[in-house]
């Protein structure tokens, strides 16, 4: 496919020094209704100490792609293609045993719902100490000491006593902190955060984002931060990847994507959320329609049925041909509109609406 080689060409120069490098990742599930193409041709890099924000709606493939990186997918019904390298080590071809050594050690993950992600049957301390004992060979006492230290680091008061509590005895914000402690107990170099703030209240959400930033500064961890909240992205991400229907549709720095988005989907997202200081008389501009089914995605550009700018593209290119992820006006976007068209739509229609 020509689209494939093109996107490769753009990424090739920076591929060398990236800490996490994902190339042409493709994830498919077999389900009773057919094959779901959950992730297609996903390519991105993440450098040491940086944060990549992945934005997308449910079913956009943002979580699935990262489960594949961790090797946590169900091998029975999932096929994964492409390459994922972490610090030079290939992950997709690695054995379960090798992956087990990396997980919780070099790469770790935190989840949206900490109550569900912590086993209700074991104490917080035990669950934090478990990976530490496994990966460093520490004994129970050392594991417990480490758990207390980690709880203190993530800001849990009285860690010596709280270490013996069960998850249900913690409040929502504290559970999230405990889960972060559990993920960071072996000082991983890569942290994948799957919507870690979505279920939290705004004040707690702000606390958790601050905590992650502080911890990143201390230890130089690279973070993949998955969310649908552009406000949180603004707070934490260096680079942003926007996903739609299993594909990357836009990729650039946080500022590029939030300020000079080059994709109709990005424009739609920005115009559909109310701003805390925007004019209240301007109605929101929702994206019409619903996210597509991955069992039977639209042909051509997957966003075309919901796109307001389809008529600006000559012919039926949007329906027949999938746009490649290309450089346009400074960063990568996958849209058939010409860079000039994109720029004029952005400056004439989108930005005025956002700043009103």
């Amino acid at each position, binding site marked *: 496919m020509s689209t494939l080689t093109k996107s490769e060409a753009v990424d090739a120069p920076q591929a060398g020094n990236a800490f996490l490098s994902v190339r042409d990742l493709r994830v498919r599930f077999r389900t009773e209704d057919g094959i779901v193409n959950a992730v297609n041709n996903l390519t991105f890099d993440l450098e040491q100490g940086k944060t990549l924000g992945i934005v997308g*709606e*449910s079913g956009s493939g943002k979580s699935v792609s990262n489960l594949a990186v961790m090797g946590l997918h169900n091998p029975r019904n999932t096929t994964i293609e492409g390459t994922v390298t972490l610090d030079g080590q290939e992950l997709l071809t690695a054995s379960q045993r090798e992956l087990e050594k990396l997980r919780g050690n070099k790469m770790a993950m935190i989840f949206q719902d900490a109550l569900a992600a912590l086993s209700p049957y074991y104490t917080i301390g035990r669950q934090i100490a478990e990976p530490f004992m496994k990966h460093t060979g520490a004994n129970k006492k050392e594991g417990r000491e480490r758990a207390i230290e980690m709880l203190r680091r993530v800001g849990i*008061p009285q860690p010596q006593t709280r270490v013996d509590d069960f998850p249900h005895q913690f*409040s*929502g*914000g*504290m559970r999230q902190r405990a889960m972060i402690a559990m993920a960071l107990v072996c000082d991983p170099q890569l942290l994948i955060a799957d919507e870690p703030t979505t279920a939290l*209240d*705004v*004040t*707690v*959400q*702000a*606390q958790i*984002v*601050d905590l992650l930033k502080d911890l990143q500064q201390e230890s130089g961890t690279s973070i993949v931060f998955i969310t*649908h*909240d*552009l*406000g*949180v*992205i*603004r*707070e934490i991400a260096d680079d942003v990847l926007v996903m739609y229907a299993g594909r990357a549709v836009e990729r650039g720095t*946080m*500022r590029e994507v*939030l*300020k000079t988005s080059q994709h109709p989907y990005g424009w*739609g*997202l*920005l*115009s*559909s*959320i*109310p*701003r*805390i*200081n925007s004019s*209240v008389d301007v*109605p*929101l*501009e*929702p*994206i*019409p329609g*619903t*996210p597509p089914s991955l069992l039977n995605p639209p042909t051509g550009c997957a966003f075309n049925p*919901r796109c307001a700018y389809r008529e600006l593209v000559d012919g039926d290119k949007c329906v027949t041909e999938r746009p490649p992820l290309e450089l346009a006006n400074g960063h990568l976007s996958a849209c058939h509109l010409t860079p000039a068209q994109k720029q004029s739509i952005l400056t004439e229609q989108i930005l005025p609406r*956002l700043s009103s």
Partner: protein
Amino acid sequence: MSAKTLTEPADAAPTSGETLLEVNGLTKHFPVMGGFPFKRQVGAVQAVDGVTFDVHKGESLGLVGESGCGKSTTGRLLTRLLEPTGGTVKYLGQDITHASRKEIAPIRSEIQMIFQDPYSSLNPRHTVGTIISGPMEINNINPAGGRANRVKELLEIVGLNPEHFNRFPHEFSGGQRQRIGVARALALNPKLIIADEPVSALDVSIQAQVVNLLQGLQRELGIAFVFIAHDLSIVRHFSQRVAVMYLGKIVEIADRDALYTRPRHPYTHALLSAAPDADPDNNSIERIRLTGDVPSPLNPPSGCRFRTRCWKAQEKCATEEPPLLQIGGNDAGHLTACHFPEDGDAAAKRAAAAVPAARTTED
């Protein structure tokens, strides 16, 4: 008591019409059982504790706060899905707080509810037509042209294909289901809709669709809303007046401009500053980071309930509960429950965070 200042409603709302709903000292305590050897009530979760506000005809009142602040319980009390422990709810002057099933029946049809979860709030075994016509059937209402026509009409109003009345909920997406829920709420021509987090379970791109739909209904059909949500931006977008709740109490209520630009209660201020904004250039909001968690409603702090997390708290806050009043410097209808309110002036905010500005309070 704060009630006194409220009986003469200071109409700050732009749509200040006739008072539709009058809530006074509304309280809900969930009993906690314990004791030995026989169980008895040993305490109470003070989910809602003395909440007072009005809703005017055709206006939208936003109810914001963090989880556990009692905003959803308040919504359920208003619709009498829960029985209040104390206080009164008056609908068009009629006390419905403890009205019997029969007495409340005609009013029930005028107050409807939209729920958060579009998946569990629709019976999966009923067709959309049955779901929407259900309220008409129960209340024995026969609209001109028949119920089936009315269902189609309603589906059209909420932006769904009227020919789909024979489908089941699982054939619709989340956003469409929420529209079905809206159509069901509209079936009885309500005057007031309690919307409990109506968009928070939806995808970002879908949220705006539902918000716009509800806004259209409010404008065109003149339906009043109590809009319960935790997302400050959406509440601001949707509601003319906003009440902020903390641990079962309203700490501040004002029309939206006053609340969002001149918050007087430290909690409102902190909440606003914590709300993430997607604009990388918007640095106007200074960051206040609350520490710790919301205390347990089983045993709330004495005096001002926010004092345990408040950077301005003094001794007085622990001993004396601040009443919800129009404190000095507030516009009419802007009520704040705080002994040491924030300056409210945007320019002086930073200074205020450092030195508690003890502006005159009227208590």
